[in-house]
């Protein structure tokens, strides 16, 4: 079953400039696996070294955060739209890491 994944602007450089991608999936986990196997350069911006979703990467099915649904196991229907939203977080600290 094809579902739509909306690609945020900074990640479109890894999806051949596409702003949305259709993948075959029954769950959110399958959709993300399908997406990152097709566009492998996306992987490091979504997953950490242990292969887990980075803590600041939020995945929404329509308007629902998958953290409060069934996470990776969240089932999908054909009309569902998956959005990847970075938590925009930050703040001042002592150490500067700029170049």
């Amino acid at each position, binding site marked *: 079953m094809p579902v739509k994944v909306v690609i945020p602007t900074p990640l479109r*450089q890894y999806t051949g400039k596409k702003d949305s991608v259709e993948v075959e999936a029954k769950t959110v986990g399958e959709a993300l696996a399908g997406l990152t196997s097709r566009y492998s350069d996306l992987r490091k911006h979504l997953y950490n070294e242990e292969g887990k979703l980075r803590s*600041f990467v939020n995945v929404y099915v329509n308007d629902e955060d998958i953290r409060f649904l069934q996470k990776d196991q969240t089932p999908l229907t054909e009309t569902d739209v998956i959005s990847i939203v*970075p938590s925009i*977080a*930050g703040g*001042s600290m002592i150490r500067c890491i700029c170049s």
Partner: protein
Amino acid sequence: MAIQLNTEQLEKIHSHGEREYPNECCGMLLGRADGDSKEVSEVVPLKNLRLDSARAQELLPLEDPGRESEKNRFLIDPLEQLRVEREARTRGLDVLGYYHSHPDHPARPSNYDREHAWPWYSYVILSVERGKAAEMTSWVLSEDRLRFDPEPLKL
């Protein structure tokens, strides 16, 4: 890449930073990207979700709540972001980046900023010293995620 703002937009970020002092302010930059330049058309101030610490902890827990607070951390509600982004897309605008303030700290990205960033976006930082807007800089995360490179900020 360079990011372009007009005086009115600059003023809007300055006054947001001063209004929220000594807390951090944050917001979104909407506009159009064309080749090597990003042109801001709207500055959208957003709420610092760290002020609602219970909800913020649920979304992105602080590692050291004793030392970290709304004074040195900010978090934007991802659902609010999603809504602003969707609405912007219907008008042909993209999210070009985000801004936040560093109260009484230099306008330089921290290690915490880097760990919570994606390439391409502009991360604009405004230093607010003793309540007054001071230096403003813009940064872009490198492809390998290891450092922030300065990005020219044009007026």
